[in-house]
């Protein structure tokens, strides 16, 4: 939560009576503000307006075919079973993949930062590699790994005596398959942030803890985790925002199938907007998603602000 107005408190004194609008700071921020206005606020406003119309392929042909429908897109959206299904799938993904991914990142960060580990740089790079690999290439490889008859994963399961799983073909398994791949693909990024957070934990705290007789687990619980709280907050919010916009993984792997089991809100929006050119409806979807993410972010920040580890976090 940034709070503007840092300069304003002292402004009156330092400007020596000049009117506020002549503050040279405006001159410095103006280019950035202009760019944001032109490339963000204007399009955002345009898409709000768009969501109040039935803009579609016919409206491209002639403006006369455009109707102002006000809330109708939103009403239709609430009555659309596909929207609710997409919302459920997206929440499923966020709720399961989010914690999993953060846990994997933290575990990897702890392992890589452990004092006994050699070649830390190598491990960091290797674990970070999936993040920088092109998703399309990853998707192709994972599709082979998930293949029900020749796939690597089912081979491994078979060796353990578990029957073949139709990963991408069974509606019950498709989302877990997407989650597994997304976690693998993304955990390296948060790992790097956690490593940075771990480096900020002062060594003396561990020394003090071990003098007090704390073992590794107790040190992790009472020293490492509380001190990582701000990092956690950042990672959790960014991961949730990113995961709410789930798109590329199902787009590449399943196209939202089987039987809509991996249809996410953004995928639905993409289909409505760019496949079928129902721009009005797609804009309404985008706004609902925006509101959801905003609400979630505010709730998370509020919870953390009230949380017990606040004094440590600052």
């Amino acid at each position, binding site marked *: 939560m940034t709070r503007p107005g840092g300069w304003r408190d002292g402004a009156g004194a330092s400007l020596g009576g000049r009117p506020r609008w002549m503050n040279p700071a405006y001159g410095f921020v103006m280019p950035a503000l202009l760019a944001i206005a032109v490339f963000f606020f204007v399009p955002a406003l345009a898409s709000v307006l768009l969501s109040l119309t039935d803009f579609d392929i016919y409206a*491209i042909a002639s403006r006369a075919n455009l109707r102002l429908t006000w809330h109708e897109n939103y009403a239709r959206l609430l009555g659309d079973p596909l929207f609710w299904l997409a919302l459920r799938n997206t929440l499923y993904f966020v709720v399961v993949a989010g914690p999993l991914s953060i846990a994997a990142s933290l575990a990897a960060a702890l392992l890589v930062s452990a004092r006994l580990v050699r070649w830390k740089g190598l491990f960091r790079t290797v674990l970070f590699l999936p993040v920088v690999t092109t998703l399309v290439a990853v998707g192709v490889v994972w599709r082979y790994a998930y293949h029900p008859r020749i796939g690597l994963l089912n081979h491994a399961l078979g060796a353990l005596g578990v029957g073949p799983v139709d990963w991408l073909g069974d509606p019950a398994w498709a989302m877990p398959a997407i989650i597994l791949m997304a976690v693998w693909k993304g955990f390296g990024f948060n790992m790097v942030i956690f490593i940075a957070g771990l480096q900020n934990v002062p060594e003396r705290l561990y020394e003090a803890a071990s003098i007090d007789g704390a073992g590794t687990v107790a040190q992790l619980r009472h020293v490492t985790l509380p001190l990582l709280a701000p990092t956690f907050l950042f990672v959790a919010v960014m991961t949730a925002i990113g995961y709410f916009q789930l798109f590329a993984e199902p787009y590449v792997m399943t196209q939202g199938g089987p039987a809509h089991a991996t249809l996410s809100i953004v995928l639905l929006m993409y289909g409505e907007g760019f496949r079928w050119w129902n721009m009005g409806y797609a804009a309404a979807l985008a706004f609902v998603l925006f509101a959801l993410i905003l609400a979630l972010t505010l709730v998370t920040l509020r919870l953390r602000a009230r949380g017990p580890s606040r004094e440590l976090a600052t």
Partner: protein
Amino acid sequence: MTSIPLLPARLRVVLSLLLLAAACSRERGASTVVEFWAMGREGEMVQELVPEFERRLPGVRVRVQQVPWSAAHEKLLTAYVGKAMPDVIQVGNTWLPELVALGALARLDAWMAASSVVRPEAYFAGILDTNVIDGGTYGVPWYVDTRVIFYRTDVLRAAGQTTPPTTWDGWLEAMRRIRERGAPDRYAILLPLAEWEMPVILALERGAGLLRDQDRYGDFQSPPFREAFRFYLDLFARDLAPRAGVAQIVNLYQDFASGFFALFVSGPWSIGELERRLPAAMAERWSTAPMPGLDPARPGVSLAGGASLAVLESSPRRDLAWRWLEYLSEPAQQAAFYRSTGDLPARVGVWEEPSLRESPSARAFARQLRYLRSPPKIPEWERIASKIGEHAEAAIRARATVDEALGALDRDVDAILAKRRWLMAREHREAAGGPSE
């Protein structure tokens, strides 16, 4: 600018101005450029046909822009909005209704009436028909795609069938026998889930109209569609087809060769793929056959697909654009184009070409091309088609009964067509003479 140092400065200026003027006049006087957008491989191979056209019409140049298929639809729409359309385009014939609704394409009837090359009777009727929208012709077929059955001759023979089945009953019986003889993971036919083509082909053979009341409402609960839909679902219920979506079929041709399935339904592109990807020993073990039908005397119907050539309404040189389109439609160019791309010619006469007449795998297409039906020619069709696939998948997975799936399909389709109904009602009011509100 050190190249002519010996000349005085003023002369240099005059000279370069003269050169510039000469360059300009040559640009303007000697060449008019016809812009042509073509997709994928066609865009690459059509370049070979350009020199002959330019030789015939001195001063005219053709610039071919190759557009990848995956980006083509979006590019056409954005080019239309941005007023950056070329003069001639290649366009998938299912996109024509949309571009016509936009008013992007020029009506070709007047040119066709005066042409000795583009005669309606020279084309397969079913394929030409996809270019006729509300009585006007907006495209000329360039090449055709339709779907036929690809089958493993050896597997069919082992099941006691020496010729491909021609009727639905015979087809079902043959598939049942293949399934009974094969191992549990050897299926009779591959019908990728969520693909709309197969249920629609079957329904068209049953005589279903798909939409009703001037394409204003879905008509999927009608008896013909329902019967075809049941027949389709039955293939899965009897376990003749695996419940596999496109995502699980990593390599269709490999799976066909390994015997995972004995039949699949596909278009002419699969001929080339099979010839290229399968080992030589497999060449004798597969063939093609027209779709089975209800009437033993003729094949079943299949979908009229393919690509057309169209002239843009916005083009300032439409006559020249038409000359290019007409040139590409000449039998000689069609034959040359077939030889370089393998795309099946849309003109009946070109099928006399020896390489086509003697190709056993093309023969099924030659016959099938006379029994084509076009899906409803409205801009919303592709969206409706994807809904058919979705609801069919739900029914196959037993997430909905036949009645529920078809009811939901009709509801979805009616919602998709709401705008069309509004537009038609407004048109009707205006035609009735009353001022629109």
